[in-house]
């Protein structure tokens, strides 16, 4: 639980704050940034939770603001940090952006939200859909017809009654993000697939939904045999609307959805993944004069798929200059701010491979302080109509007592995760690339 929750600007000045408990004075907020700076100065890591003079600070950063919670007790830090993230989410959904300006522009409503989202330091309602039903910009409407926050404590606390759409539709997006790490010897050291099923739900009334996936455990528990491949998900997380007990007993995913957009579930697979896009680079550096790169990219997926917006970041040392590029496809740019050059390929067909060459000048005097850092090559991409895990939506059943027909739409996409990296930029001689 938190005693004080505040949003600070980058200078450490509180933009808005709310005190929930008297045991911590809000004036302690002034100590936050100096403490952070002091830690940094002493070469210590600034961790998300730290304590000073009996007060525990928990914080996250978003754009140009800090969100800080203070407590004197042995607080559930996981709860407070998740709450701060949720606060960001709610404020973003209310004001599109969360930054100094939007906080000033909406301070009255933020006070209301802070009052509603946490009581006595205990997080309460943090679903922005629900909050928006009774905390709005033009609240004078409420004076005309005060609406009770029924849904806050409804049996179905995430959905209001009486929602109506002329056309009932559901959109499902199955998005898989691939994280992987390839070592300098070309072996995949670590790989994981983070899947997410996002839903846009435009349905009237109180619909009951049931989602069927080609989930291996489901087939096993029901004793049925799948048509085609079944996927083994290592860990599944659900939105609170999903009946976990049903899932636990027979792996059925049944729920009454919230209205609008939300993430229904996420899952993780750590089965080994073959790199969908393979990149390697041969580096030939002539200390004090120039460095040359030969980069090879290969699309290691089926021909019928295409990767879009492929971006390959190859690291170069900070002091490189006068770049020259030659690529067999796409375009190459130098990105000194990222200490890399970027090879962009709009469309990369499955099974294709391409080469590019880069040439940089190096200053004749080498900075002695420069240690040998070797950042990995990173890749961004998206492959539509394809899931790397092979997961598929088998059905989405929608039942509402009025008996309307609703159309489900499903889209699949596989993309890079936050860490798709290859340590395959090698000095020439150590592992030669065979020219095509």
């Amino acid at each position: 639980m938190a005693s004080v929750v505040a949003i600070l600007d980058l200078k450490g000045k509180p933009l808005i704050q709310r005190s929930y408990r008297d045991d911590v004075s809000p004036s302690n907020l002034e100590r936050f940034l100096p403490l952070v700076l002091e830690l940094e100065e002493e070469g210590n890591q600034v961790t998300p939770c730290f304590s000073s003079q009996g007060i525990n600070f928990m914080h996250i950063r978003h754009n140009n603001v800090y969100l800080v919670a203070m407590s004197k007790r042995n607080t559930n830090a996981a709860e407070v940090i998740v709450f701060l993230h949720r606060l960001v989410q709610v404020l973003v959904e209310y004001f599109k952006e969360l930054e100094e300006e939007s906080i000033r522009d909406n301070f009255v409503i933020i006070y209301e939200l802070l009052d509603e989202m946490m009581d006595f330091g205990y997080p309460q309602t943090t679903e922005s859909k629900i909050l928006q039903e009774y905390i709005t910009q033009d609240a004078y409407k409420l004076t005309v017809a005060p609406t009770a926050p029924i849904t806050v404590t409804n049996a179905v606390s995430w959905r209001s009654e009486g929602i109506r759409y002329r056309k009932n539709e559901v959109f499902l997006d199955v998005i898989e993000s691939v994280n992987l790490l390839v070592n300098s010897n070309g072996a995949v050291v670590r790989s994981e697939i983070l899947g997410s099923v996002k839903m846009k739900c435009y349905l009237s009334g109180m619909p009951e939904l049931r989602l069927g996936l080609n989930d291996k455990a489901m087939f096993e528990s029901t004793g049925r045999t799948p048509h085609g491949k079944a996927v083994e998900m290592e860990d599944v997380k659900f939105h609170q609307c999903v009946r976990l007990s049903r899932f636990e007993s027979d792996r059925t995913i049944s729920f009454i959805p919230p209205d609008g957009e939300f993430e229904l579930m996420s899952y993780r697979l750590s089965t080994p993944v073959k790199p969908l896009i393979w990149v390697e680079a041969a580096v030939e550096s002539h200390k004090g004069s120039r460095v040359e790169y030969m980069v090879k990219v290969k699309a290691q997926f089926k021909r019928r798929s295409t990767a879009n917006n492929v971006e390959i970041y190859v690291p170069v040392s900070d002091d490189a200059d006068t770049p020259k590029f030659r690529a067999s496809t796409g375009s190459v740019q130098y990105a000194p701010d990222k200490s890399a050059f970027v090879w962009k390929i709009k469309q990369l067909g499955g099974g294709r491979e391409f080469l590019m060459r880069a040439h940089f000048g190096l200053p004749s005097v080498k900075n002695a302080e420069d240690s040998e850092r070797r950042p990995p090559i990173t890749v961004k991409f998206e492959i539509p109509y394809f899931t790397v895990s092979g997961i598929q939506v088998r059905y989405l059943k929608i039942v509402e007592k009025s008996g309307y027909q609703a159309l489900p739409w499903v889209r699949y996409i596989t993309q890079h995760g936050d860490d798709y990296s290859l340590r395959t930029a090698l000095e020439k001689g150590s592992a030669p690339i065979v020219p095509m």
Partner: protein
Amino acid sequence: MSAGQDAKFFTRGKIQVRPAKRVLSLHPQTPASFQEFRQELQDAELKDKKFVKRKTVLKKIVANITMGNDMSPLYADVVQCLSVPSLDIKKMVYLFLVSYGRSKPEQIRYALPSLQQDCNDRDPLVRALAIRTMSYIPLPAVTKAMIDPLRHCLQDKDPYVRKTAAMCVAKIASYDLKILEKEEFFPLLKDLLLDPNPVVVANAVAALTELSEKTKSVSFGLDLQAASKLVVALADCSEWGQIYILDSLLTFVPQSTQDAEILTERIVVRLQSANSAVVLTTIKVLLYLMNYMDDRRAIEVLCRKMGPPLVTLLSSGPEVQYVALRNILLIIQRRPTVLRNDVKAFFCKYNDPIYVKIAKMECMYRLARDENAHAVLAEFVEYASEVDLDFMRRAVRSIGRLAIKIESLADKCIEALLDLIASKVSYVLQEAIIVIKDIFRRYPGKYEGIIPTLCENLDALDEPEAKAAMVWIIGQYANRIENADELLDDLLYTFLEESIEVQLALLTASVKLFIHKSTSETAKNLVHKVLKWTTEEIDNPDLRDRGFMYWRLLAINPAAAAEVVLCEKPAISTDTDRMERGALDQLLLHTGSLSSIYHKNPETFIRNVRGKALTDSPALNEASRKVLISLPPETHLTIETEPPPLPSRNAHPQSPSLPPLPSATITPTATAGLESAALSPDRLLNNNDEEDEQEDESSSDEGDAGSTNPNHGKNQMRDPYADLDGAFGSYLNDEPKPLEGRRLDDDLLL
């Protein structure tokens, strides 16, 4: 939703409200500006369609509160607005009251009638708002005025009001416990546990849990039936409510192993929650209940189920990852089968923040074993060429620890360290020397061949710890290093300017050199020179005394001196570096909390808080009972503890400033004690240091899991927290420790 444009109130509040010439004044709330606010409010009463004007003025006032300007002089004027039938305005006035109500006890009576009236409003939103606002104003008059409304609200027909009222009881308890007892609110609150609405139940649970910590008149312990009822409510309450209910399950002490098993089966599905805090709290309850289970299969199944959710937490934001990692470090010490095969999940991502990387590296080290050691080493080597210095140094150090932990990998680790030394990067070099010294002690007679390589880099060492380590190596192996006397002589050149750590090492090394090469004239001169310096020119009593001691020893009986100084040292290992099992059990009761991040029990960093411990019951399994830590008697509750230093300093046990070798406390003979004293001079310097004492404590616990040690009883008398020492004493648990006292309790730690 369209964005608001209220930022103008911040500027207007400053410029329009005050006469232009005062704009630069540091204190904008001069009487004149208040006068203007007042005037504006009064003017607004006329022709105020939909109260737009008054709303604008109030917004300006709230904007000023936000900027930290004291608006309390406007109290009476603002309170007057309560009569306006606008929810918007009401909310702003309430906000004003929460901010300034307590500072104007004599004026609160103007606001009370409206507040009380709102408690009976037909809109539940307003009722809840009013009661919530009142409970935030800790004035006796307000408390008294809200007694009746609160009683009604606790039984309100709307669950939103009931859940708000439940929290209000906890709030009042924080400033006026007596009135709650007198007015018999606790039974009303307890009734809410049976409320049909799960959100109300959850808030009642949270309120009762807090009250039970505060007063004896509320006891909140669950039996199986009550616990089961709460678990049923879990399914339908909000994610936060789930946390409050799960938390309360720790008050349930299973009387039979079946009870514990049944409960775990019912809550294990919460691991599938999308909320990381729910997942961690579920894990806390599962770990707790596992102490009361004896079916090994069932325990194993639970351990297997905990792994994947923990790994998934590592895909959340860095802050959550950090909390998860600090907890995982504890969990895998207590239940090594959890995540046994998942070391790869901890490999660092290039863009992870450093604090996450460091926490990951600790977990990787902990999870390393023969089967995965190569992969782990390859990662560490990769990290050793990172840009961040702190991270890089820890990586080098981890390679050394890996060598000590996993014998089959020692060769490869040494190879890696030599490669790093060849890179000639100063920081890497110094770290490498420090760990190699420990490796020598772990594998005597195996790697001394690399000493010449180390000696080549002597000049590059400028950090005390590295220098001291190198000096130790030279002294210890003076008989194998041909030019040891020359090397030492060079090092002694700056003796008087060195730090105490290096001086102590130099002193001992010179004595060792002399004993090894007693015939050598240089050695004799050297030791003489050093002894003379230490006894005549040094002010530090530790160094001086040690100088005298060596001198006497050498003068009286050189043979005995050789035995003392070059006695066989106990080999070190990291096998026993796990935290005490009992301390772990205790610390894991705080999973997900600050305590679990700092790796300290809450009573060590929070005043006036009672610690938690497992409660004995017939179901408590034998292994857990053996290491059970009992809480100190309650009379000690008010003992003040030092506020902890910044955790990040403590959080990383290998920070270079800590004593380098823990062997000191355990060495069995006096002679060995002398030797190790030479190794870790810090001990001599700060032997009143808190951490030192704790280390003593934990190491004396080593052999018998901390129950029958006679010292223990004594300490308990003196210090009520003596039993807890293990928890933070073994905070240095990543340091190598002697091989003795290895407990073969792996089989107990499923």
